[in-house]
């Protein structure tokens, strides 16, 4: 299940009637990809919690604005990304939150990627995830971030480079530990 999965017209009509059972069913359908997206973008479960809660509340409250049922997932994703980016803008002037990261003692490609991704700057993390994991276009990312397309492209290139460098460094370190 992903955020691009559609809902049917009956579900949309029920959401417009504010049917609580349908709201819960739709939440169950989209909560996992929404949660993953929020956690990846914000890098913090507490902020992801706020963003996902607010996104679903806004989506259900403003459901009257949605015309096509098949666009619900994309619409929800847009609201969610907006929420995370708003959080980022609000907290830009505050002290950066220390992310809860575990100690990665064992070498594992997935864990390396997880750690390298977590170490990225928040904006880099948002751009690379939205582009490479969610498949969003630069124009869309730029619009959500209130930036230009070239900003999105250069941010993506830089984020990818940082990730690859960290992954390469991690692999080299693991190899030297194995041989040494």
């Amino acid at each position, binding site marked *: 299940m992903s955020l691009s999965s559609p809902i049917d017209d009956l579900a949309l009509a029920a959401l417009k009637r*504010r049917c*609580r059972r349908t*709201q*819960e069913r739709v*939440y*169950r359908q989209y*909560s*996992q*990809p*929404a*949660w*993953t997206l929020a*956690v*990846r973008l914000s890098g913090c*479960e507490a902020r992801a*919690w706020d963003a*996902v*809660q607010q996104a*679903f*509340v806004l989506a*259900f*409250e403003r459901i009257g604005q949605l015309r096509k049922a098949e666009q619900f997932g994309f619409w929800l994703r847009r609201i969610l990304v907006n929420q995370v980016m708003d959080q980022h803008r609000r907290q830009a002037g505050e002290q950066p939150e220390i992310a809860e990261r575990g100690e990665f003692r064992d070498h594992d*490609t*997935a864990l390396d*990627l*997880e750690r390298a*991704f977590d170490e990225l700057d928040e904006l880099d993390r948002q751009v*690379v*995830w939205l*582009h*490479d*994991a969610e498949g969003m276009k630069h124009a869309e990312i730029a619009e959500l971030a209130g930036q230009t397309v070239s900003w999105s492209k250069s941010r993506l290139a830089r984020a*990818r480079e940082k*990730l*690859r460098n960290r992954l390469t460094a991690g692999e080299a370190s693991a190899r030297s530990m194995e041989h040494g």
Partner: protein
Amino acid sequence: MDDAIDFTRLERSGPPGDLWPAIAGELDRRRRHRLVRRVSALAAMVTVVVLASVFVQMPAPTPAPGEASSSPEPWTLAELRAASSRLESRLADHRQRPVGGLELESLLWLEAELAWLDEQLADSPADRDLWRQRVELLAELNRRYADGDWRREMLLASV
């Protein structure tokens, strides 16, 4: 997209179990808030409508006995006699003042009418309708005398 990072191998966790109750609670809170706002707006509208209808249906201020009135008032005989007495004492003051030629004819006619009513009342002293007519006539006489005073003062002021 060739350079894209493959994130599919990352673990995808699910949301905490208390997230849906929080969302449902927030939706309920907003629904209640909307309801309160709508009820308040409705109450305000109803209040305005009720007040407007009260003002529209409110009867005109009840004139005192003897004052001009378009509809008969349910005065008791005692109230009519009291009003008649009050108006008559006021009329006595007016009668002491000089009367202009313009008002004289109508005043004489009304005074004759009053004399005729008094004769009728002498025969039927408990006739409420006659007393009501007397009160209205006295009120009219007082008004005519007062109008005459006002016109005279205006004439004097213009000299």
